[in-house]
């Protein structure tokens, strides 16, 4: 009995890790731990404003605006990569081209644009660290972003590296819709940071 249970648990290692992670996040969000961590992070956000990025971002408005524009451009490219891959999974485009071909190439574009988005994003965050620290929408965005990155590298890529014909088509569609939802939410909450601060 115990060995078969252990074997079952062992063969569902990724599922268990995932569910555990989700539960930890839920407990974290609903307990006082969230507030404690938030309070502790204040020093860090103050420090961010004193870094080079922070000083440039705060004092040189034009540089900040140009970085903002490139953040948007990289977001557009990231959107292109996400949409092409997910539309292919949903069977809306390129259904005559092997999915693996589209997925692999789209993933390359995705990684490059993700790096640019993160780099420009860190720069912008340093410039307005004292402001965004107080905005709930900023933390929602970080949650969505972390979810998105973990989802892509821990769930989506490992799953879709397998032969798509072997995977349950419903799961494929669910993965595609989830991916679109996550990345659109990341972008939407990001835009809302600008509104919330004004």
């Amino acid at each position, binding site marked *: 009995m115990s060995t078969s249970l252990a074997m079952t648990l062992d063969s569902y290692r990724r599922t268990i890790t995932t569910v555990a992670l989700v539960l930890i996040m839920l407990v974290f969000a609903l307990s006082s731990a969230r507030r404690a961590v938030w309070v502790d992070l204040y020093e860090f956000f103050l420090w961010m404003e004193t870094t080079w990025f922070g000083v440039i971002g705060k004092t040189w408005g034009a540089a900040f605006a140009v970085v903002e524009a490139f953040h948007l*451009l990289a977001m557009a490219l990231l959107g292109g990569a996400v949409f092409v891959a997910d539309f292919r999974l949903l069977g809306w485009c390129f259904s005559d081209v092997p999915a693996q071909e589209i997925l692999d190439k789209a993933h390359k574009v995705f990684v490059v644009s993700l790096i640019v988005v993160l780099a420009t994003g860190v720069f912008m965050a340093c410039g307005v660290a004292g402001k965004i620290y107080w905005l709930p929408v900023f933390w929602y965005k970080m949650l969505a972003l972390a979810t998105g990155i973990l989802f892509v590298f821990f769930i989506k890529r490992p799953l879709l590296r397998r032969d798509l014909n072997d995977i349950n088509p419903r799961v494929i569609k669910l993965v595609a819709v989830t991916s679109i939802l996550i990345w659109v939410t990341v972008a939407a909450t990001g*835009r809302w940071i600008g509104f919330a601060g004004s």
Partner: protein
Amino acid sequence: MNELLYNFAMWLDSQELSTLLHESYYMYNWVESTHVLTLMLCLGMLFLIDLRMLGLAFPNLPANSLAERLNMPMLIGFSIMVLTGLWLFYAVPVRNTQSVWFRFKMLLLIGAAINAFLFHKNLHSAAGSWAAEIKAPKNLQIGATLSLAFWILIVICGRFIAYDWFDCEYTEPGLAQFLSGCIDGQTVF
């Protein structure tokens, strides 16, 4: 010309709906967010087409078939951007009319449109043998590079509209006011 544009903007501004849109925190921000988020669809597809022509994305897919297929989602995105863009203009007509960035952006959009027209003409006349190659023919590569440049500048200008560096209100008479089309003795927004 500036006077004409200004009067037209003033007329739009005098309409109740324009004021309502402008003053509605949620409606304005929703439309603005839609405008920005649609970049992911419109420019996302456009960038992939352009990068394919330059051999930087999807090198194994036939370039012209990729361009044809991504055209539709791109145009859907573009239509949404035009509609929300018009809406945003209508909500803040005078300030946009007298924004030097908005004016640059409109000029760049015209440039991008001409470039897109030429690009498609070249794409059709060049159809065939090169499609499987990693890089497109020279003229299509130039078109793709120009398209990338136009759209990068358009996004930068679009982002700059939000900043008031060169608003009529904050500038002295001179080049900035001339480019922004400020009018002597006008109401300042």
